[in-house]
């Protein structure tokens, strides 16, 4: 445990103890047990301030530890209550109001409203995350449907062509024009056949990936790249049956990496996308490599949150990627640029 964590916990503990001590010992004992009201207890503005501070700080820390992004309304609630407590304290201090109820109500109100709101915020954040995930899944599904439609069209076109080919061959056969048929085969069918097999051959190794989700994201993205006219290859030297990582996470990560690579290649209008998946000494390795522009910004710049080669508002991808990678102890990521080749390598250890 380092100093920062230790301090944080110490502070949290201090705040909790202080709150309880103040509420129960000072306030509640006075009023409900001893049935007396001592104005001196409340004569300092400092005390109500401390109540709210000691109440709000642990909450802030709790929320911060959950996520670094605190929604604005948490602050609003905190500030509203803080002001209320301060105003009441001030009124008592000045002697304008001397009902202890004026202080107890906001203090209790504060605690009963604020603490549940933390749980509410937590749930809200959780749901937001889930919604984000759902929309990502939905987008992927839509992509897949698109891809299926595309394949269906391609298939229909192929069927149509095949019919034409056979019928024309039929004509040659009926006429017994063997020379013409030979020419027809060499000039038309052979090159067409080459085109058909070329693309598929490059992605043949995808059949070695036996994890459905991973296979489907790779198929979608790689065939998308091929359809965009990007020279794409996929390598896997042996069957991949398991990856020691949550499959949704790996799918999201691969999605981001492949999207970035495809985006760069489609802007460049040249270059190649190389993707590989293999096991080495028991750990799983994914490599996504693409040709990149010669004047690529430094790797450090690329990793900045929100940075994108496409200008503001884009580039959330890598940011999300590093957020994902942080929570995965068995993942190591190597990013490199060499000879106009941008390479991202994910290395997943089988055990932590």
């Amino acid at each position, binding site marked *: 445990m*380092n100093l920062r964590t230790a301090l944080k916990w110490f502070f949290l503990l201090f705040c909790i103890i202080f709150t309880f001590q103040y509420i129960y010992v000072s306030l509640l004992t006075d009023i409900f047990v001893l049935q007396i009201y001592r104005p001196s207890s409340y004569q300092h503005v400092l005390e109500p301030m401390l109540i709210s501070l000691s109440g709000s700080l642990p909450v802030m820390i709790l929320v911060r530890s959950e996520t*670094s992004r605190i929604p604005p309304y948490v602050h609003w609630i905190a500030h509203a209550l803080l002001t209320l407590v301060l105003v009441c304290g001030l009124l008592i201090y000045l002697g304008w109001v001397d009902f202890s109820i004026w202080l107890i109500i906001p203090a209790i109100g504060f605690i009963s409203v604020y603490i549940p709101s933390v749980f509410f915020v937590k749930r809200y954040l959780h749901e937001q995350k889930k919604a984000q995930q759902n929309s990502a899944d939905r987008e992927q599904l839509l992509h897949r449907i698109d891809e299926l439609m595309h394949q269906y069209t391609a298939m229909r076109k192929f069927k149509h062509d095949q019919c034409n080919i056979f019928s024309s061959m039929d004509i040659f056969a009926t006429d017994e024009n063997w020379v013409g048929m030979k020419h027809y085969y060499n000039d038309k069918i052979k090159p067409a056949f080459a085109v058909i097999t070329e693309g598929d051959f*490059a992605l043949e190794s995808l059949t070695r990936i036996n994890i459905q989700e991973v296979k489907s994201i790779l198929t979608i993205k790689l065939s998308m790249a091929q359809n965009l006219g990007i020279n794409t*290859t996929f*390598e896997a*030297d042996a069957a991949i049956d398991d990856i020691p990582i949550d499959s949704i996470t790996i799918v999201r990560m691969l999605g981001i990496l492949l999207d970035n690579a495809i985006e760069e290649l489609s802007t460049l209008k040249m270059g190649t996308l*190389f*993707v*590989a998946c*293999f096991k*080495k*000494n*028991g*750990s799983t*390795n994914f*490599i996504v*490599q693409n040709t990149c522009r010669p004047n690529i910004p*430094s*790797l*450090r710049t690329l*990793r900045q*949150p929100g940075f994108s080669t496409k200008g503001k508002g884009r580039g959330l991808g890598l940011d999300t990627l*590093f*957020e994902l*990678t*942080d*929570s995965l*102890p*068995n993942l*190591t*990521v*190597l*990013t*490199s*640029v*060499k000879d106009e080749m941008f390479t991202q*390598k994910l*290395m*997943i*250890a*089988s*055990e932590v």
Partner: protein
Amino acid sequence: MLHIFICEDNDVHRTKLESVISKHLLLNDFDMSLALSANNPTTLLDNIKTHTGRNGLYFLDVDLQCDINGIELAVEIKKLDVSATIVFVTTLSEMSHLVFKYKVEAMDYIPKDIPANEAERRIAECMQVAYQRFLDGKHSSIKYFTIKIGDQVLNTPYRDILYFESSVNQRHKLLLHTTDSILEFRGHINDVARLGSPFIMCHQSYVVNLDKIRQVDKVNRLIEISNGDTITISRRRIAEILQSMNVVI
């Protein structure tokens, strides 16, 4: 001495390889010899097993017409000869260059279908580079920073490391910066702060390689690294850094 091994099932190709290698052994004054030219992986592996402790440069055919292929053979060789340098010779462009490069850490892969003089040039280049590496390995003890990913080991020479960074957004990971790459791995900055020379902690989130500092900006408390990156120095460490730099220079 650096030993050269060939494993190729096709006699024509094997003879060609042998002749090219012998020619370059004659042309250059290398401390190298052609140890074995085998037509199957078993002979090669047996030979390595009986003569352990040798440094080898291996030219391997990928499709060996045998129960194991060149890639699997390379993995076996690596187990016996850790510092093995492997070059693949392949028919057609069997699309596996990433696997060659990253899984087996092959130095090169030479397609058989390229023009003969081009192939010869690349073979010569491989021999040159392998020999240089062999000499480097013999004469200096290069220090490596090692990261283990399960059983997979990732070595980065100290001389390639610019600095380590612990990221604010990623509290469980460390970033290792080199000239052309960033490696993100699980670790804590205090662990790398203990590495010692030439590394020194200049800030609670940075450990820098003293040899890679281009200049120190004392006013703004910034260090410029040889690749142009700038990192901050904390006030209380600035004197220490300057002093250590003077020692180095």
